[in-house]
């Protein structure tokens, strides 16, 4: 029974991503949308936390939100998967429940 965690706030501005990472469990999925998409970029102060999460969770970013903020897919952290809105819907189907970290 895995959970899809949806984060829409920049990890540099708010504590939502941090709180999500602290509460997500092994096998869960984390999807970064809207301003949270910038958290997918490698080399930032929070990249280490995301990499640690990748050890036992899957991490996704909404490609449209990443591109809107000028970040190309070749600079995101290794292992993060890019999805579109259709992929977002699929994630809510594949995981039995969702939690939004608003």
């Amino acid at each position, binding site marked *: *029974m895995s*959970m899809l965690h949806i984060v829409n706030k920049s990890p540099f501005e708010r*504590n*939502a991503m941090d*709180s999500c990472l*602290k*509460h*997500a*469990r092994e096998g*869960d999925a984390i999807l970064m949308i809207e301003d949270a998409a910038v958290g997918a970029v490698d080399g930032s102060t929070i990249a280490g936390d995301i990499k640690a999460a990748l050890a036992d969770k899957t991490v996704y970013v909404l490609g449209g939100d990443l591109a809107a903020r000028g970040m190309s897919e070749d600079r995101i952290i290794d292992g993060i998967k890019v999805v579109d809105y259709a992929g977002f819907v699929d994630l809510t189907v594949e995981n*039995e*429940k*969702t*939690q*939004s*970290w*608003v």
Partner: protein
Amino acid sequence: MATKKFMYVNRKAPYGTVYALESLEVVLIAAAFEQEVSLAFIDDGVYQIAKGQNTDGIGMKNFSSTYNALGDYEVNKLYVEKESLEERGLTADDLMPIMWEDEDEDWAEKPSVRIVSRAEMADILAEQEVTYSF
């Protein structure tokens, strides 16, 4: 109707935004649907049930006493994260003594607030079927 596990996740302080108040309004309505209802107070959400709230100085309605009424609606699982309290310099003593009466034990008064660790909170959140976030 089917019975599901509903979780209300509260992560914001009261009054600065309307989320705490309008979250409580949902919980009160939800009680009529006879579902399994839990509330989680994480991060700044812990201030929502801080005791001694006094809104005279800001001209807003003090709705904190409504949490005391939740027991009457059979909403008695209020999970509060220990680490969230500690990070804010708070302890369990800073929270309202929200109680409920256990019909099965001759209406014995029992605390609705349950302080849990972050790891326990993660497990509780994982058990839910429908999670509303405010």
